[in-house]
């Protein structure tokens, strides 16, 4: 685990429904719980605030600055396009840590082109979240091809799961596959994210020797 002292800036990218928002929310909560000042930025430009909408209030009460539209403030959803939330453009100027949830996924790391200073921020790390239960990233080769299409990627996160049917075995299989893909891509595996109950069984390191980050599920309370 990296030493947490300096400013933390992490952008979560990846396949649609790979778990970017779940990981981002949990990460923000972990940092906030350690007394850090945290900004959680909703950078979904196709389905803005769909995942964060019902959680926004709860997260704000925990002291997290949630940078996202209120649905009622917005005009036009879905195919009619949306207006980029003005504060998002300056998200990297907020004091404290910045967790960027690049929702929907289709533009990969390129969505960060909309954020001032993303190209030069010294602390920014871009992590690709991978769930091998998603058929488009269900094999090492597919993961490698997919991650290569995303643009800049600084690390992978194994978020392999099957929703309510997740088993330790499945998570570990994912850990091994993501580890091999990372090797081929020449990037590190940052962590395996897994439900707390299963994390207790797996321990602090996954089958490939990478850190385990226990998470709680918040997304079932989201719109989708």
């Amino acid at each position, binding site marked *: 685990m990296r030493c947490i002292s300096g400013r933390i800036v992490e952008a979560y990218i990846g396949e*649609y*429904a790979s778990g970017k928002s779940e990981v981002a929310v949990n990460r923000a909560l972990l940092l906030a719980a350690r007394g850090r000042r945290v900004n959680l930025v909703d950078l979904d430009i196709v389905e803005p605030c769909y995942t964060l909408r019902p959680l926004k209030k709860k997260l704000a009460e925990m002291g997290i600055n949630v940078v996202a539209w209120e649905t009622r403030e917005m005009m036009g*959803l*879905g195919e009619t396009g949306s207006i980029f939330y003005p504060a998002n453009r300056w998200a990297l100027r907020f004091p404290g840590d910045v967790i960027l949830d690049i929702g929907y996924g289709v533009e990969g790391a390129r969505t960060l082109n909309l954020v001032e200073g993303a190209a030069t921020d010294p602390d920014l790390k871009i992590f690709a979240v991978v769930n091998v*239960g998603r058929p488009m990233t269900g094999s090492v080769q597919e993961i490698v091809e997919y991650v290569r299409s995303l643009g800049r990627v600084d690390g992978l996160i194994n978020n392999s799961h*099957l*929703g309510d049917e997740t088993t330790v075995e499945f998570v570990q299989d994912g850990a091994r596959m993501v580890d091999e893909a990372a090797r081929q891509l020449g990037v590190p595996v940052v962590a395996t994210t897994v439900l707390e109950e299963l994390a207790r069984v797996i321990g602090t390191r996954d089958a490939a020797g990478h850190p385990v980050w226990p998470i709680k599920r918040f997304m079932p309370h989201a719109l989708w």
Partner: protein
Amino acid sequence: MPDKPIEGEKRVFMTGNEVVAWAALAAGADIMYGYPITPQNEIMHYWTRLAPRYGREFLQTEDELSAGFTTCGGVLAGRKAFTATAGPGNTLMQEPMSMAEAMRLPTVVVIQQRGGPSTATVIYSQQEVTMTTLGGNGEGLRIVYSTANHQELFDYTIKAFNTAWKYRFPTFVLGDGYQAKMRESLTIYDPAIRGIELVQAEPFLGKPGVPGVDRPPTQLRNTYNVEEELYEVLEGYFKDYEKIAPEVAEHEAFGLEDAELVVVSHGVVSRACKAAVKELREEGVRVGYFRPITLRPLPVKALRETAEKVGKFLVVESAQGQLARLLKEAAFGCPVEMLELFKPGVGITAEDVVSRVKEITG
């Protein structure tokens, strides 16, 4: 020869729209004609990412009128063609789908319902029941499957192609925005390993042989000069439809033996109703559950038997009585009281249904 999209079977975690794309691949669909509209865009996105690997095609059209007509065209050329749409796109599809009804074309269309009328919301509703079952300027000679979960989206999308090509009526898979975007696990499979034989497509036009000599001439018509001609053709269609209705109709039900009230619902709302009825029955409330899986043709026999036996329906839907209207026609003459829980465009929870049943039963 491209590989099969799915070898054997596999447990996966997907969004509903993706499931449709994978199922269409598994069903051997040759081409998708698509036009974007929320909340079904990802069907097109996943199809276009996957299709090239398996030698399938895609054409983006200029609007839904065109998407519907090109689907008709694809089918006429003997291809397993499909499209997907929602809301105002579904409204536009009524013209091409009327032609499909007129010419008995085995088109497959996936509808992911959103709020109505007009542009309303991009999110969810069950407000396209009337339009999907009885739309266009025809007589409702359509087959409509209303799915409730991702496994069914997969199973019934495959079935839709088989049903369409076997019986030659425009066939629809009716989902909704929640099903489209929700994430669930399911088993995707190669139909062959489940003993599902894929009905072969065949061209309507360009058949071999000399017309009138080797085979009857192909005459595809959606227009007639004389009323009596139209009448004769339609009479033939009605006979065909009535004949296949009992084979095609599907439903699921439980708790009817001792029920004093039956909760009737379809699609994703039936999940909440199922949970509610189970909970209520555990408390000793004499309530049953009935869910038509086909909205066209409705499982009329089972519905009427239930209506006769129980005499009280609570119709639960995210629309202002679109399902109820169909049920009333099917149950006409049966002494059944029709109560309602209508929430147009809004999701319905098990708690909502439990409250309403308790309000009724006292």
